[in-house]
């Protein structure tokens, strides 16, 4: 039981909780929250992988890139969620889905 295992365990749990959230949630803004959670687990995994493989620099720079990219995604997603609320009147995924069949 060393640091590697603990951090890996964290990554697995965060990933699992995030996927569980994607399966469960019906609110559009909560989806954004869950996506951010998944991104944190990914960042942790990248830094860990960088350390393990002996190239910590690359791991960290990729992790920073991922944070920036996913933040932009979260921001645009929130703006879209606001627009959806304005036009459809609801944030429930089930009710706004028109791609049926």
């Amino acid at each position, binding site marked *: 039981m060393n640091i590697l295992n603990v951090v890996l365990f964290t990554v697995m749990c965060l990933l699992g909780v995030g*996927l569980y959230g*994607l*399966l*469960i*949630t*019906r609110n559009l803004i909560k*989806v954004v929250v869950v996506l951010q959670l998944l991104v944190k687990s990914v960042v942790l995994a990248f830094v860990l992988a960088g350390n393990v493989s002996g190239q910590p620099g690359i791991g960290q720079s990729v992790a920073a890139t991922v944070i920036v990219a996913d933040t932009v995604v979260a921001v645009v997603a929130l703006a879209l969620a606001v627009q959806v609320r304005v036009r459809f009147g609801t944030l429930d*995924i*089930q009710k706004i*889905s*028109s*791609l*049926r*069949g």
Partner: protein
Amino acid sequence: MTSLLSLSLIIIPWLGALVVWRVGDNHPKWQHGLAVFFSVLAGILALLMIPYASSEVVFSLPMGSLFGELTFVSDGLAVALAAIACVVGSLAVLFSVDYMHGERQLGRFYAFVLLFIGAMTGLVLSSNLLFLFFFWEITALCSYALISFYNDDPKAVAGGMKALIITQFGGVGLLVGALTVFGQLGSYQIPNLIQHASNLPSGLLAVMGFGFLLAAAAKSAQFPFHTWLPDAMEAPTPISALIHAATMVNAGVYLLARFYPVFAPVPGWSFAVMLVGLITALLTAVMALTAMDLKRALAYSTVSQLGYMFYAIGAGGIFASQLHLLSHAVFKALLFLAAGSVIHSVGTRDMRKMGGLGKQMPFVRNVFILGALALAGFPIMNGFWSKELILEEGLKNTPWWAYGGMLIGAGLTAFYTLRMTWMVFFGEPREALHAHDAGKAMKISLGILAVGSFTTWLFVGGFSEMLARTLPFHEFHVLTLGALIEEVLFAPATYVALGVVMLGLAISWMVRKQATGPVPEALEVLSRESFGLDWLNRQIAKVTLRSASILQKTQTGEMNWNVVGIIGALALVLGILLWSAS
């Protein structure tokens, strides 16, 4: 030079399809003109390629280790079929200028026709088994789209679906064969397969052989898959002439001809091919006897003649089958286009309403008679020479009862051909139909095809020489024109066959009043249900459509269920990884 030519044969029609589609339906004159231009260009290029036929690879593009290399080989078989596809294609497009005058959505029509012409040439030129399958599927798609061209007519849509499902069902056989080859030999290249065929374990070779036979039978509407072709007659007539008489249905014959050296050693394969041809030829000839719809009768006739080609391949006469393919493409396209003129001007396909139209449409009547004589196997016409060759091969290599059956088939062919011609053009008019003779564009196509129907046999020397030179594994014998005439004229079998044909014509003439009248109820029901097989094909189509609508329920469009799918697939992949690593 040849690589450029062969590539252009595929690219030019496809480019034409794109251009005609983009021109838009508001400029029909441009669409007609451009379609004719591109298809005639392809036809000329295809004819130009004939002297350059060779057995070497003319074009090769590596597509990665998964697909092998995209190779094209322009040998005799490929060039002949490509020429047929492009030339008959251009004549059919020329015909459509008059036939489809004033129709809506011409862009869709011409785009699919040109797409089809390009895909058909790709199919015959392809030397990579997987890409042959891809082009095969593209032709099936175009066929479906064109059969259902009048997509507000439920019969047309149903016909298109049926054709698609049945030919795709057969396509599975082709795919299985291709994948088997790749698994065993590591390459999709056809020359590779032909050379190393003896290295494959015989069980696998048999599976491949019968898989290919399944695909060819489904595509060429042979027994037991023959029911989709008559229903495909809902397509506009130029399409029936091009796709369902001259090109796409020949893809099955082409497949068997090309892979004959590979599968001939498989025990029972040649016999199965011959049997399929024999049963189909006889069955559909009987069905053509009772047909009341002009196009349906021609469709049954097409299937019957394709049965002759299958029979020839089963008997080992590859050259005879290819010569008959050439003759049949010409005279059947002629018959369909002439029938199209008739249908277009009187507005009905029912032969019971026609009669005595010969006086009002003399040109069409004359070319139809020429085509009918070729179909029946009357001397001098190209159908006579090729049919005699087939029967001779059959006499040499097949059991006596098979030969007898094909003879009877020849008689039946003559019978129903005369019946058809009489019902439409001669006798007393049954209804007062107003008919006008063919338009100018129609006349040109019909004229060219009519000339072809009694001249194509003159090229037999060059044709057989080209095949013998470029297809070493098929062991063709060069048959010059003189040798052909000598062989056919001096063989006693010829006169037996000729006698049967004349007998058929004579009997048909004598009973013409009864033959063109109402048909006994039982026989009519039997033919309509294709001797019970239509029920089988309808079931296949119904099961497919129902399972499709059941699967539609999995497409909920809701994120939660989509994520369930993603995670489930991820779990599956991880499981497989773990299991294979242990």
